């Protein structure tokens, strides 16, 4: 139980500080990166609540697709004050190398730990699979109408986004 509490407080701190960074920091690129951090910690919060499938969807849809869209549009804009967005220096390089080391250590730890397959982990995987199955059944029976409406909405949005970004900017003729 105490490990759950520690995990919650770490994730709460991460998501709140990243969320504040999104609002506070002047550079939009940094806000986008902080928003990615928020999304990842929200996915972690979903894991602490036992919503494993939603955590995966959160990572793929938000941290993957939506944020890539944001960053690409930001890159398109060529804002003048983004000149100092990517600093170079000894300290930042050390931080970058430290992040790489952390990632390598995390991967190695996961690989080593995954060789110990305990019964508890097996039970958790089975429970998560059951929950995902129930979620799918609910989505395709009781909430089928909403699901179909969302499909049509996404189609309309895809066409609308293409049409909007091809237009010459509305009714302002100078």
């Amino acid at each position, binding site marked *: 139980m*105490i490990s*759950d*509490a520690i995990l*919650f407080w770490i994730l*709460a701190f991460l*998501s*709140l500080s990243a*969320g*504040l960074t*999104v*609002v506070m920091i002047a550079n*939009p690129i940094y*806000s*986008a990166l902080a*928003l990615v951090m*928020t*999304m990842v910690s*929200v996915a972690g*919060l*979903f894991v*602490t*609540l*036992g*919503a494993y*499938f*939603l955590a995966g*969807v*959160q990572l793929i*849809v*938000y941290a993957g697709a*939506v944020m890539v*869209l*944001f960053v690409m*549009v*930001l890159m*398109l*804009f060529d*804002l003048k004050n983004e000149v100092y967005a990517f600093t170079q220096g000894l300290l930042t390089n050390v931080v970058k190398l430290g992040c790489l080391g952390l990632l390598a250590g995390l991967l190695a730890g996961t690989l080593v730990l995954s060789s110990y397959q305990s019964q508890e982990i097996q039970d958790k995987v089975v429970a998560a699979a059951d929950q995902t199955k*129930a*979620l799918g059944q*609910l*989505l395709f029976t009781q*909430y089928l109408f*909403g699901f179909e409406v*969302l499909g049509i*909405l*996404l189609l309309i*949005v*895809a066409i*609308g*986004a*293409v049409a*909007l*970004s091809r*237009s*010459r*900017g*509305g*009714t*302002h003729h100078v």
Partner: protein
Amino acid sequence: MYNLNWFSQIGLQHYLLLSSALFICGMAGVLLRKNAIVILMSIELMLNAVNISFVAFSHYQSKLEGQIMVFFVMTIAAAEAAVGLAIMVSIFKRFREVNIRFFERLKG
């Protein structure tokens, strides 16, 4: 020790507090920032905060409906980001600027 218990036993209240704090962050971003892209990001932040409370209620009441709602919110958020960013691209083409001060007077 009531205080220590509050820190070590995580319940629905904690998730709701975190959710409302994140929502307030996003709302502050929408109200305070002038960069339209950051405003869109703050809206995403608010939607995420709402998702946390949906999943928390779903977990503590042992009902899956909350998670279905999160699916819907995520889809709407993705659609909103796509349309919003398309509008931003269009506005940037026209005004060469995404600061909302420069296009606050739009005419239909």
